[in-house]
């Protein structure tokens, strides 16, 4: 994320504009250096600028994918920690379970903010966003599963199944 900030326009202290393509010498107080022909620069000026923009967009989307994949490492770490903590009721394991629940929730809340730097009309952020959400949901599921709140067992589906209706009816007993 630090790297991403470096390319932002707002972060520059000074700048040299190499893309000044005005041909009139009157506009400049400094004469052209000897051997410099302005015409050749003018020739491929637009191509260079496009190239630059493309590179930036590429870089942005690459970064966005990286950011989107970041929770995966988190997930692995969480899983490992939970495995280490075991299933006993313990202050440590309670803490881990709650952090496993809290992290994905807070991350999901801030989805827009995380991907804001890579906003660009040329960059498609939908894919990374979806991946990011999916991975966080996975983390949340891991936490919920630890709490036993996911219906992953047969018992979760049959626990309130009413008894089957009986076809036959029989009554009687010892005569009155």
């Amino acid at each position, binding site marked *: 994320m630090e790297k991403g900030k470096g390319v932002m326009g707002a972060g520059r202290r000074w700048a040299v504009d190499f893309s000044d393509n005005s041909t009139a010498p009157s506009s400049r107080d400094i004469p052209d250096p000897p051997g410099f022909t302005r015409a050749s620069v003018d020739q491929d000026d637009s191509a260079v600028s496009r190239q630059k923009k493309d590179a930036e967009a590429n870089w942005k989307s690459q970064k966005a994918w990286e950011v989107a994949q970041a929770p995966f490492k988190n997930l692995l770490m969480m899983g490992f920690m939970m495995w280490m903590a075991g299933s006993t*009721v313990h202050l440590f394991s309670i803490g881990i379970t709650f952090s496993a629940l809290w992290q994905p929730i807070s991350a999901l809340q801030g989805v827009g903010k995380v991907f804001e730097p890579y906003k660009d009309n040329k960059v498609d952020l939908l894919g990374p966003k979806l991946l990011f959400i999916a991975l966080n949901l996975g983390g949340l599921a891991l936490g919920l599963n630890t709490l*036993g709140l996911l219906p992953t067992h047969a018992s979760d589906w*049959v626990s309130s*199944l009413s*008894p089957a209706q009986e*076809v036959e*009816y*029989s009554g*009687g007993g010892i005569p009155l």
Partner: protein
Amino acid sequence: MAIMSFIFVFFFFSSLQPILSLYEDQVGLMDWHQQYIGKVKQAVFHTHKTGRKRVVASTEQNIIATLDLRRGEIFWRHVLGPNDVVDGIDIALGKYVITLSSGGSILRAWNLPDGQMVWESSLHGPKHSKPLLLTRNLIIEKDNVLIVFSNGRLNAVSCIDGEVLWKKDFEEESLEVQQVIQPPGSGFIYVLGFAASSQFEMYKINAKNGELLKHESTAFSGRFTGEVSLVSSETVVALDSTGSILLTISFHNGKISSQQTPVSNLLEDSPGLAVIIHPSVTGIFAIKTDAATIFIRVIGEGKLEVVEKTNHETVVSDALSISEGQQAFALVQHAGSSIHLTVKPAHDWDSNLLKESIKMDQQRGFVHKVFINNYIRTDRSHGFRALIVMEDHSLLLLQQGAIVWSREDGLASIIDVTTSELPVEKAGVSVAKVELNLFEWLKGHVLKLKGTLMLATPEDIAAIQHMRLKSSEKSKMTRDHNGFRKLLIALTRAGKLFGLHTGDGRIVWSHLLQSLHKSESCRQPIVLNLYQWQVPHHHALDENPSVLVVGRCGPSSDALGVLSLVDSYTGKEFSSLSLVHSVAQVIPLPYTDSTEQRLHLLIDADKHAHLYPKTPEAIDSFQSEFSNVYWYSVDDDNGIIKGYALKTKCSSNVADEFCFDSRELWSIVLPSESEKIITTATRKLNEAVHTQAKLIADQDVMYKYISSNLLFVATVAPKASGEIGSVTPEESWLVVYLIDTVTGRVLHRMTHHGSQGPVQAVLSENWVVYHYFNLRAHRYEMSVIEIYDQSRADNKDVWKLVVGNHNLTSPVSSYSRAEVITKSQSYFFTHSLKAIAVTLTVKGITSKQLLIGTIGDQVLALDKRFLDPRRSVNPKQAEREEGIIPLTDSLPIIPQSYITHSLRVEGLQSIITVAAKLESTTLVFAHGLDLFFTHYAPSRTYDSLTEDFSYALLLITIVVLVAAIFVTWILSQRKELQDRWR
């Protein structure tokens, strides 16, 4: 994994586990208790001394009780054992109640004021005979003496300590002693009786030492029957066995002279068989024939004269000596809706000492017994009070032409109980009379709040308690939201139906069933049972609910049946049917017609099934289910259980389309030399089961085998069917069966060697709990059997369950032969049992508790978790989390879990549980001689606030919080403003 969910569950349960008892101030809020004594057999007044006037009564339920003569409340009461029948009671020395019981073998003296036993002596003799108790003021050597004739022996017993002073045997084999007389002021005793039914015997005995002074006998050509009536101190009257000749026998100075008078001489029309009633009014006796009661006076030497002949139902009291040498007796006659009480002096028939007419509730039936007592009015004339016992077993005290008090002692012999809803509260009907006004409501809540905040003074606390106990809310006559207010409909042995309000136990209505009354067509009516006939809900709400009373005319099983339909709201009998067939079984079917009348199948002695109600609609709905209806009968005498299906129409009577023949399908014949059926149990028809799955540790599932056609049968070795300890463990065993009653398949059979009955069992959901005696361990045991359906066990694929691709909800047939497994376990239990029941909730979600009627006549709640066959000595962690209790060899009895708290339900017979509308709560009604009712929440009332929850406190808290929010908001605004100005 899955720890966290269990953390909550664990804390939840651990916080919830221990206290299920009541606080002291909660007694009487939800429960009520009523005490009864039963039908009075004999009553003796104690009004001589100053102080509290009382009456001592012995009843047919073997109770001795003293009642307050002013209000009819019980001072004290003793329940003798079921075999300890009271033969006679009397008061001796003005301070002891003397009772003779157990066929004259036990004589006891009780202290009159407090009911403590003073002494007891057992009187044995050479042979069994009619027990007679005589307490005159006989004094031998300054000792007051009781003369008791029992077991063929005449005993003189000291009043002071119960010591037998002398005894005289009458060993002659055929002698039947009928009377023991001690003429006042004389020092001898006459023992009168019949020998070989045709010889009159008279023994004159010295009262001081039991010496035989004289023995005379005279032969009579006919045979004697029954009673002799003593008409004077030396004359008796007897009837011969044909009931047509009256014998007057006098034994003046030891000489017997007799005279025969044919009854037809006294009466013009031949009266048929006569019996002598009420033998102890001097000079007068009465004979009763089918049509009339005839009073006959003895004049001079054996001459008889009819003084009155009444055709009404007439009851005569014993003679009461009112002054020196003067006796009086009372007559009670019915006349329309009132009764006439007449007290006459014994010597003069035509004059009356008292004649009163008292308006009497028709629902009490005829007068059965009358006991009188006199008192001296302020003008020194004699006043009389009469205690009368009615046909419905109620007891009334009459004085000065009015009913002073009445006791509904018929409720001591309840046969069956069912419940009914109360009427729905209609919008138009104002309940403002019972509703408190706003001010009082507020006052009540302020008081409650004071109580909560511990600011209340003792008077306030008393006021709060009074308010809680007398809450009008619980005794309203309308349906309530929680389903706590209901009508308990109780059928008593006397054939009376009572509607009791569950809120406070008051009698809402009571009716003597006319159709089960003695009549020409039905001479000996017996009430059998009570069923819910119509329980309207949903679309038939405007109908009143009704109950069905089934009776029969006569004690034999092939006597004709009687049906009576009674409206539950009013208690009025709106329809009755005299059946043309007998009633052997009544089977309520799980089908109703459009007015919610339940279809019933009545099986007669010839195994024909009759469908009721007899409407075309009923038969239409029955036809569609015809092939699925089966019935079974358990013949406990022969050890045969048979199952039947219905064939088409009865072959015998062509016209009756509601009659069906039965076809025998299966039979289980138990070997009569080794097994005798002692107990059966089935599931309650109205029991709701929430789920078919049982979740066990590690998220695993077991499927319960839930079938309403399950029958539990317990058999014992025929030798071992007697008392506990009558056999050795080797020759005693108990076999239990679980039988499917559709196919006759024995699902489970288990033998308990060395065990013996009596067995009490309860079947619910997929388990049965039963109680028996283990002869080897010399202790009572309780066992549990749980039955699971193994053929469903492989329904464990989550995805199949998610998409609903399973057969768990499809209808099951008993013919599909489900593979079952059973689990069982046994535990020791301290008490012997009188009754056992299980809590019943409306949806069956709440965990179950067993309600155990202990031998001490209390009701004990025992969590079903203690009777879980999966208990083990060291349960795994997961099992502990599931709530499995480590195995112990005996079941704990937690003193706080007696739901009857400090009360006793004397003579406890059965415990009835009814579901309230609130899922957490069961209504429990226990009856025997006493009645007890309470609300019981097996897992506490998790779905409602407790009754003592302070709404006022909640309200105040909310108001304070809102106010605080406003205040702080204003303050913060002001501060912000100041900050900005700075």
